[in-house]
């Protein structure tokens, strides 16, 4: 069990100090797949690195199987880290070493008997489905294959915990799916606790049993995935969910049925542009009769943010392009659906 108790962390530079974590507490049970979700800069990465102490907290405690990480000596910490695997968004493989050598590295560091090393690496290569790629260099592999090497490397010393740092963010949706399937397999086969951080809603929806939602260094909500998605309690969670891909897909599909003719546009308003009467200006400039057919808008500190769908009954391609560049000039993200 991983227990994070009231952990705070501030990064200080000469110019400013940033509170990356504010009194975060979490309990992650053995064998579960736990997701930490939030926008970039929310502190997810720091929280993940607190678990294996790549980052040290200023306040609070981290306990793994009741053992306080702060009480470990330097050497004990290094040994403990061998039992906590980690995979990364950009894989972080050694470009000068083959697939085999990359996977064998953690075993070498742990000074495992060379014969056992060989057997272990072969077993891992089979587990992640990279047979035949043993002697390939990472540069010759696809993104998905690189992450498989990363996973095999992370599992080399039979860890109890696997930390995933945006492990699928650099991959296309299809490859992402296969990597997530692999992670779930590993979790079931080996019983490893998986903690993953992501900004992608689909990732947590697909494999996480429980999730924590982070905003600006705070854990605002923790719960079972379905429950948190269906009945978010915190307003910031709600807002995040409104922009979720699934939501977008569903809304788009519904609207297309309602408005089979003309064009539908999805607009995204963020903090930069939301305090201006943009839509009014654009309607005047384009002289197009835009009608708002759906909107999810939430007040924020600087204005109103969220997404909006507009419909135009009659428009040719040329006018449509003009309209899109007009939105662009107001820094509103617009896409035809």
């Amino acid at each position, binding site marked *: 069990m991983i227990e994070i108790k009231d952990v705070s962390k501030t990064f200080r530079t000469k110019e400013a100090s940033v509170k990356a974590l504010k009194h975060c507490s979490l309990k992650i049970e053995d064998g579960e797949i736990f997701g930490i979700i939030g926008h970039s800069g929310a502190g997810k990465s720091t929280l993940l690195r607190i678990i*294996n102490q*790549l980052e040290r907290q200023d306040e609070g405690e981290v306990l793994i199987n009741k053992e306080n990480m702060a009480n470990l000596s330097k050497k004990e*910490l*290094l*040994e*403990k*880290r*061998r039992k*906590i*695997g*980690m995979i*990364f968004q*950009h*894989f*972080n*493989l*050694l*470009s*000068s*070493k083959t697939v085999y050598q990359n996977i064998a*590295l*953690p075993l*070498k*560091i*742990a000074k495992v008997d060379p014969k056992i090393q060989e057997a272990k690496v072969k077993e891992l290569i089979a587990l992640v489905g990279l047979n035949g790629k043993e002697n390939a*260099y*990472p*540069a010759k592999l696809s993104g998905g294959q690189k992450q498989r090497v990363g996973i095999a*490397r992370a599992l080399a*010393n039979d860890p109890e915990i696997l*930390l995933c740092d945006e492990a699928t963010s650099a991959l296309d949706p299809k490859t992402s799916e296969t990597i997530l399937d692999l992670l779930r397999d590993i979790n079931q086969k080996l019983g490893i606790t998986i903690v993953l951080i992501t900004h992608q809603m689909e990732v947590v929806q697909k494999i996480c049993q429980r999730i924590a939602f982070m905003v600006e260094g705070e854990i605002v909500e923790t719960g079972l995935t379905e429950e948190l998605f269906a009945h978010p309690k915190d307003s910031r969670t709600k807002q995040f969910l409104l922009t979720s891909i699934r939501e977008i897909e569903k809304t788009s599909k519904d609207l297309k049925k309602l408005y089979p003719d003309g064009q539908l546009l999805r607009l995204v308003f963020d903090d930069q542009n939301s305090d201006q009467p943009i839509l009014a200006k654009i309607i005047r400039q384009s002289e197009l009769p835009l009608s708002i057919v759906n909107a999810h808008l939430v007040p924020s500190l600087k204005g109103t943010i969220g997404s909006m769908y507009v419909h135009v009954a009659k428009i040719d391609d040329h006018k449509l392009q003009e309209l899109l560049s007009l939105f662009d000039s107001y820094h509103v993200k617009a896409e035809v659906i």
Partner: protein
Amino acid sequence: MAIFDSYESLQILEALGETLYMTGVSLLFAVIIGIIMGIILFITQDKGLYPNKIIHTILDWLINILRAIPFIILLILVMPLAKILTGSILGASAALPSLILSSAPFYARMSMIALNEVDKGVIEAAKAMGANNITIIFKFLLPEAKSALVSGIALMAISLIGYTAMAGAIGAGGLGDLAYTYGFTRQNYLILYLATALVVVIVFIIQFIGDYLVKRIDKR
């Protein structure tokens, strides 16, 4: 070599040997000293593996000063040291201290750059695996920086050949000396051109070998 008499032929071969000797020995020492200095620079820098501002600043200054002194002046400044170490201020061995002193800082800077170019994510992955700092340096950083380190050696070998020619002008021997004393001052232009051509050929060979090795090592 029918166009040269036997004495001249011997002179040319001897000069070639001296140039290769000076380049080879100073290269070896400069790489060893340079890479150690480069690693120290790398690990002591801000956010390095062993941050230490004092050591870093001192080393940084030392390297800058040595690199700022023009080689021909360094040759003269190092003469007393050469005399202590080799017993003479003339000959190929006497030129070695100044050659090493001028090229080691050059290689230190290059190896620090090579180490800095290694993806920071690799270091993070190493730490997450439970690697200690020594392991990180030898099993992660140096292998990843290898191709840049090797291309640095080729670059430095070539600049060392230029330096040996300069050292020749103050009595270290070698092809530079041959070109100057026999070729230029005695107006034996054939020798001058031949010495020059030999230097060019050596440079080409080094570059070729360097490129070949880098191509083989670099798996990116």
